[in-house]
């Protein structure tokens, strides 16, 4: 176990967090000793500066908060293959934007006898992993690591338009097909799906990274944008809405990237930010394969050996 020191808190990039005093773990600049997962989580949340929501799915979803930390991994979803990669890279504190136990709230009712559950649980225990779900704190942090990271990954930082309810970009004129090809290539979203006219002229784009619920997706679609890009949205909600918009002659498009491609640029950026905050523990982003395949290219990317 490495002896680790937490650097004296520096004001975070997040403006709101600057006023919050760092927690005990970060206060003593020369404090030494193994740092525990729970300490690091508290410190990270403080540095992010986003207040706890009254109701949130952000919590410790696996592992012991007293576990000594060897390194931090950020992932879009705490899949078993992500956990394997993190363990192989000697990172045992995993910060995930999305679920670990296959539901929004990571509930475990009825799981104890399930072989897939047991395999994942046993892997977590055997490797001293700790998994913390950090979606809401990331969503509420300003600047927003997910939004900034996605914009950076796409090379759209200069195209960002501030001020809307959702992330907005003003692009060089393109069309829906070319935009979808660009996103597929850049984000590794090989099973991305598109609604609308491939020839639709595109300049103004809104994005809801991750899951887009009916609202604000519909509000975004009826604002003055050409295309909405989301991780996922239900077929009977925003997908139907944009089809109906197009069916009355409006010029609109929708792109569904998939959850992992729509978030992991943000988690990569978050890892870079964390590395500047927590200097003694290595921080790494674990990139996930998309996981899906389609009949254009039927290839399984998930390693099946434990």
């Amino acid at each position, binding site marked *: 176990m490495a002896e680790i020191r937490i650097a004296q808190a520096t004001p975070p990039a997040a403006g709101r967090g600057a006023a919050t005093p760092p927690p005990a773990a970060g206060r003593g600049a020369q404090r030494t000793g193994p740092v525990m997962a729970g300490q690091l989580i508290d410190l990270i949340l403080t540095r992010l500066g986003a207040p706890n929501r009254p109701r949130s799915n952000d919590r410790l979803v696996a592992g012991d908060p007293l576990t000594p930390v060897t390194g931090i991994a950020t992932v879009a979803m705490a899949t078993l293959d992500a956990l394997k990669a993190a363990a192989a890279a000697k990172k045992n504190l995993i910060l995930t934007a999305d679920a670990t136990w296959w539901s929004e709230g990571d509930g475990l009712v009825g799981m104890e006898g399930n072989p897939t559950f047991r395999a994942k649980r046993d892997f977590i225990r055997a490797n001293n992993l700790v998994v913390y779900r950090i979606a809401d704190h990331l969503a509420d942090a300003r600047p927003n690591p997910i939004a900034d990271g996605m914009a950076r990954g796409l090379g759209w930082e200069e195209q960002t338009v501030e001020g809307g309810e959702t992330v907005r970009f003003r692009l060089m004129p393109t069309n829906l*097909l070319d935009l979808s090809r660009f996103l597929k290539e850049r984000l590794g979203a090989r099973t991305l799906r598109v609604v609308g006219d491939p020839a639709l002229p595109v300049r103004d784009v809104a994005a809801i990274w991750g899951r887009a619920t009916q609202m604000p997706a519909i509000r975004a679609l009826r604002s003055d944008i050409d295309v909405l890009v989301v991780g996922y949205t239900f077929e009977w909600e925003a997908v139907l809405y944009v089809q109906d918009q197009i069916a009355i002659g409006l010029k609109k498009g929708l792109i569904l990237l998939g959850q992992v491609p729509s978030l992991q640029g943000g988690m990569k950026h978050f890892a870079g930010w964390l590395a500047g905050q927590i200097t003694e523990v290595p921080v790494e982003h674990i990139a996930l394969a998309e996981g899906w395949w389609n009949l254009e290219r*039927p290839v399984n990317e998930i390693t099946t050996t434990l």
Partner: protein
Amino acid sequence: MSLSAALSRRSFLAMGAAGASLAGTGAQAQRRTLTAGQVLERMKANLNTPWREGVGVDRFIAGGPDTAVRGVATVMMASFDALKDSLKAGCNFVITHEPTYWSHQDRLDELRDDPLYKVKLDYLTRGDMAILHLHDHWHAHRSVDGIHVGTARVLGWSQYMHKDNPRYYTVPPMTVLDMARHIQARMKARTLRVIGDPGQTVSRLYASYGNFGGLSGAQIFENVDVMVIGEAQDWDLPMFVRDSLAAGRDKALIVIGHVLSEQWGMEYAAEWLRGFVKEVPVRYVPIIEPYWNPERPVMEINTRL
């Protein structure tokens, strides 16, 4: 923008012509006027399941029991395209499995001032249309869920359906890739997606067309090799299957798309309705797959009102 004004005269002239030919038959036609409420009563009598009024989402979304029916259309989702095609086919009573107004419950609280809502409502009103949401009761249809009757038929799998639970099938062993190809070919699902080893042989199958959410999938997978569903969020069942693969378990998931996974059940609904609705035409109106992928871009939405 005056979207309502954008409604072209063309479609309503066409509707007017259809209306005129009916009106021309005079008193005899009047005596035979069929209402949407009468059609619904006959449906209730033929579902082999009790009609639970006010429970779930099934109700009139447009028009009502008194709407005079010129023709009945069954559709998977009451998309604007589906409404246009229904009227074009002479059908002003649309029976839809999925919503009209972009949520399962057709909630309007945040949409009453929505410009698209106003255009759709206006289109329905001008076409003297009625819409009946037939979701829960069609799944409750007996002896077999009405959706599953249709999907089993289109896949050629009716004989493999388990008698005690029509969601379970034992199909002849085939690879995941061949199964995906079969489903894509039969259902024309061009953007179907899969998690699993393409070369894995599967036979025990659980089908849950439409949306599948919740952890019950984790238990179901103890009994099957593959699940075939309409849609799910990535962190739900798809991630469970991904983790099962990563744990060395041979499991696969085929995700068809919501509309294409269920609309064959509405084709069967038209056939079922024809058994007791004889006065007017009953037509199945297929709707398009909403998506394309960059390998095969297409534009299938009719943009003319």
